[in-house]
């Protein structure tokens, strides 16, 4: 049986149905300049929170056969100002501070005396390209044990000879595929790839893998997150 109404009632009914859609207008807040920044920051923050939840400490990134490696000369060199900050290798040390039992200046030989791990892993750039590289070095987790780091601290923060800086959440810092990397393709790290020491993190995007490390701090409070992060990139960016 058909329902019946008159045109006036039908118009009122249609209007009510239309008004029910007004919540859609809330999206217009993104078009208001004053609200846009905070809203996008909140969105990125939510995204980073979800990323943190999705991260699994025991889950390893895929590794590849030597035959699948991107040739060394086709491994891109990205830096934010100089290819070579002219680090004096003879005098270089990694200065360790923060929540650790043994702060101080660590020589490369001390880091190299820790068990060496080599991995063929994918390096993903935030720009969209990816390569498969061979990286070698000490596990950051072994180094953190060696310096007596407080593993309940939230972050590992690093500074670099080219004034770049980065931070890592502790869960990622302790991941077995997070290396203090001093080798690429079984050769000592070259200057343009961050000699003498860089980060290699198979579970993070490229910009987190800082080169030319000079300082390492274990801390629960970050004054700065990272060079790119402080300009608006994701702070966590786990792959």
């Amino acid at each position, binding site marked *: 049986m058909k329902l019946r109404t008159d045109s006036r009632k039908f118009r009122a*009914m249609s209007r009510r149905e239309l008004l029910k859609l007004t919540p*859609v207008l809330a*999206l217009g807040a993104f078009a208001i300049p004053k609200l846009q920044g905070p809203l996008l920051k909140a969105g990125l923050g939510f995204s980073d929170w979800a990323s943190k939840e999705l991260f699994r400490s025991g889950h390893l*990134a895929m590794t590849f056969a030597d035959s699948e490696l*991107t040739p060394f000369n086709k491994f891109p060199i990205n830096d934010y100002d100089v290819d070579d900050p002219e680090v004096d290798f003879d005098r270089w040390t990694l200065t360790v501070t923060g929540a650790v039992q043994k702060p101080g200046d660590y020589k490369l030989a001390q880091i190299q005396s820790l068990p060496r791990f080599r991995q063929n892993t994918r390096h993903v750039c935030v720009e969209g390209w990816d390569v498969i590289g061979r990286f070698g070095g000490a596990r950051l987790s072994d180094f953190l044990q060696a310096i007596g780091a407080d593993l309940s601290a939230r972050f590992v923060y690093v500074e670099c000879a080219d004034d770049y800086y980065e931070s890592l959440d502790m869960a990622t810092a302790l991941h077995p595929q997070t290396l203090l990397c001093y080798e690429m393709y079984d050769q000592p790290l070259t200057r343009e790839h961050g000699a003498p020491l860089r980060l290699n993190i198979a579970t993070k995007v490229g910009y987190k893998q800082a080169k030319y490390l000079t300082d390492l701090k274990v801390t629960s409070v970050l004054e700065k997150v990272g060079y790119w992060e402080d300009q*608006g990139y994701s702070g966590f960016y786990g792959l």
Partner: protein
Amino acid sequence: MATRTIAIENVKTREVSAAVYEHPFLVRLCHWVNAVSLFVMVGSGLQIFRAFPSFGAKIPQKDLLDWPKSLAIGGWLGGALQWHLTFMWIYMGTGLLYLGYQLFSGNYKQVLFVRRDLPGVWPMVRHYFFFGPKPQTKEAYNPLQKHAYTSAIVLGVLSVLTGIAIWKPVQFSWLGWMMGGFHLARLWHFLIMWAMLAFVFGHLVMVVLHGWDNFVSMLTGWKKDPEYDSE
């Protein structure tokens, strides 16, 4: 399928016309939220693409196309990622709400393209593109429409899955593996966007051709003077 048909008597002329409640509230809500988020996802996605407009190697880099910045959202890669990573939650949220509602309400029968719709596709194509006679239908959507909407829903799901494969290639490595690797997942994500844009283009052309009453039905739910008999 219970379609609500109503007879409307004009208060002045006493003429009686019909209207059908075609689009439930949640479908309309999801439609318009999705329209906004799809716009933002495509716009910011194209700005992200500009950072490496290629699907080959980084060295040497061969660019596929130079997409103009003025037709993208975010201004730079970091800004575009903020838009993309914010609206992807809205996009996925409305997608899940829509799919859940359609499934549990049974309303999916209105849009889901099934085998018995197959014979009706060609007559409809002939009508739209080759000036054939207009086939009669008893449903809100004709077979070709159902095909288009079902495809759009599938594309929506695929856009999310390929997106996750790019965003989390380690945690969801199985997704990337299913798509032939990270590298190809990025290409699928890009191609699915174009397929979606092709749908949107066709959809908008149809909206214009079918006039005001048809457009209003996606706002109020009620379609006046339906071209089909649902009783």
